């Protein structure tokens, strides 16, 4: 399994990742790798370890054992900020947006641009540049916002999710982690979000991969090319969508092959 570090190393590789809480093995010796342009669905029952795995990659949880490699280089994240610096962007299940801000302010939340010169030294915001860049980025998206200055609190759940995902894409993440991107949405809204995810991946010029956590097989099936299935903290299946069937996936999730 162990390979030497090389130029053509996969975008992401994890080896033997484990997370134990006392005697509970939330994540148990998980290894896989991920190439560019891959959209992988991470499936599993409640408590299978999906969230723990994503949190380890996002720097929100520190694994008990195991290694994470980006482009063949080993990385250790002890905070979400460190993971973000390496191009790992996470879209959380409960949206991490500030409701009273507009799109641009949310895009730049925690990474605000400051003005040049002495004003910048005093931490003065460069609102115009932030607005301009956010506007330009949003216009490239398939999603349309009638009013870019509208506050998040005036938007629907689907629009909010689109903003959250756009923000992750905006920062040019190499690896996007989406935790239940369609969980709280209606059918139509979920479809819009999925369409947008698909468009983002195919439009990405640089190498980019995505891990999508979901309970909803239909949603995962429509956008993913590959499926990882966790069960009781272990990776029980790693399947290409083209080589499997929904029945087989469901059987892995429920443990029919155990």
């Amino acid at each position, binding site marked *: 399994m162990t390979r030497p570090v090389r130029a053509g190393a996969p975008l992401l590789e994890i080896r033997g990742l484990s997370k134990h809480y006392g005697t509970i093995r939330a994540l148990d010796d998980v290894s896989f790798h991920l190439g560019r342009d891959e959209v992988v669905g991470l499936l599993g029952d409640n408590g299978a370890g999906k969230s723990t795995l994503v949190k380890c990659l996002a720097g929100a949880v520190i694994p008990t054992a195991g290694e994470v490699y980006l482009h063949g280089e080993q990385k250790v994240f002890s905070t979400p900020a460190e993971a973000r610096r390496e191009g790992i962007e996470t879209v959380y299940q409960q949206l991490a947006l500030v409701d*009273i*801000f507009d799109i641009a302010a949310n895009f730049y939340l925690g990474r605000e641009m400051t003005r040049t010169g002495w004003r910048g030294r005093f931490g003065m915001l460069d609102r115009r540049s932030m607005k301009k860049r956010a506007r330009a980025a949003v216009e490239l998206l398939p999603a349309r916002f009638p009013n870019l200055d509208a506050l998040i609190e005036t938007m629907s759940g689907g629009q909010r999710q689109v903003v959250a995902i756009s923000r992750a894409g905006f920062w040019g993440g190499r690896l996007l982690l989406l935790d239940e991107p369609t969980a709280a949405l209606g059918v139509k809204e979920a479809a819009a979000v999925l369409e947008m995810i698909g468009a983002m991946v195919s439009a990405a010029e640089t190498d980019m991969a995505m891990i999508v956590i979901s309970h909803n097989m239909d949603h995962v099936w429509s956008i993913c090319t590959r499926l990882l299935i966790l069960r009781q903290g272990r990776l029980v299946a790693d399947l290409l969508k083209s080589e499997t069937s929904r029945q087989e996936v469901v059987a892995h999730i429920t443990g029919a092959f155990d």
Partner: protein
Amino acid sequence: MTADHDEAGAGPRRLRGLRLSRIPEAGALVVVLLALAAFFTFRSEYFLTAPNLVNIATNVAVLGIIAAPATMLLIAGQFDLSVGSAAVFVGMVMAKTAPGVGIWGAVLLALAAGLAVGLINAVGVVMFRVNAIITTLATLAAFRGAAKLVSNGQTLILPGFGTLGTHRIFSVPLPAYIFAFVAVLSFVILKYTVFGKHIYAMGGGPRAARLAGIPVKRYIFIAFLLSALGTVLAGLIIVSQLGASSPIAAQGLELQVVTAVILGGASLSGGRGSILGTMVAVFIIGVLNNGLNLLSVPSFWQEIILGALLLGAVAFDQMRIRLAKSS
């Protein structure tokens, strides 16, 4: 497609979007202020005179200097009720130590005393995770007691420290200038800096702020220390104006501060508020007190009116929160 986007982009820019929706709020306050001023002008010939207006500005200086950082705190979702007691404690330290260490030494000790209160508040809230209302209610009680302890319950006379509170430039006393300076500085910080933006983010979306890597704890710490700085200034001004430090001065100052901040549009749920709104509210309170004095209305009524104002402002805020949620 491009045309669509241009339209979507140009429309809000022309209207300056819903951003205007924030102005009517402060606008309504200005209308209230002007109505009060008109009423008192009509009822008292002294109200609209230059000396009286200077009077009002001087009288609201202490309130305004504390209300500015208090606005930041409330926007970040925090509270500081200890301001009145802390101001008196600061004044007591000043008056008590000045005879021994001189005016400047005493100012430094007073500053240290005020910052110590702020530090205790910050540690309680940030490190021990005690609710800010409880933490600062505790320091409110403790430092009123500490002030009495320092002075043995007596009023301490402090001669030779009148400049800060009573010196006039163009016949306007110094505290009014200090108030103006604090207000402008707070306005700029809150509206135009990264720190200000993060203050709003912390109150409007605490989870989002934390996940975005905003150093929430450090900012709450700083905000409490800024509140303490305002308290130090206010405490020194009070001592200087009176020429003495009384252990029962500044009673209920925290109530006036909270009233001003909430009346000014800051929300109890955090994330909302502005220095501009708070400042207009400070003047509403100042004009009310001044006008009622001119009309010889007993001061008990002023307390009742202040209470009613606070209740009204909070009720209005709750209504707004419910409206925002239901929309």
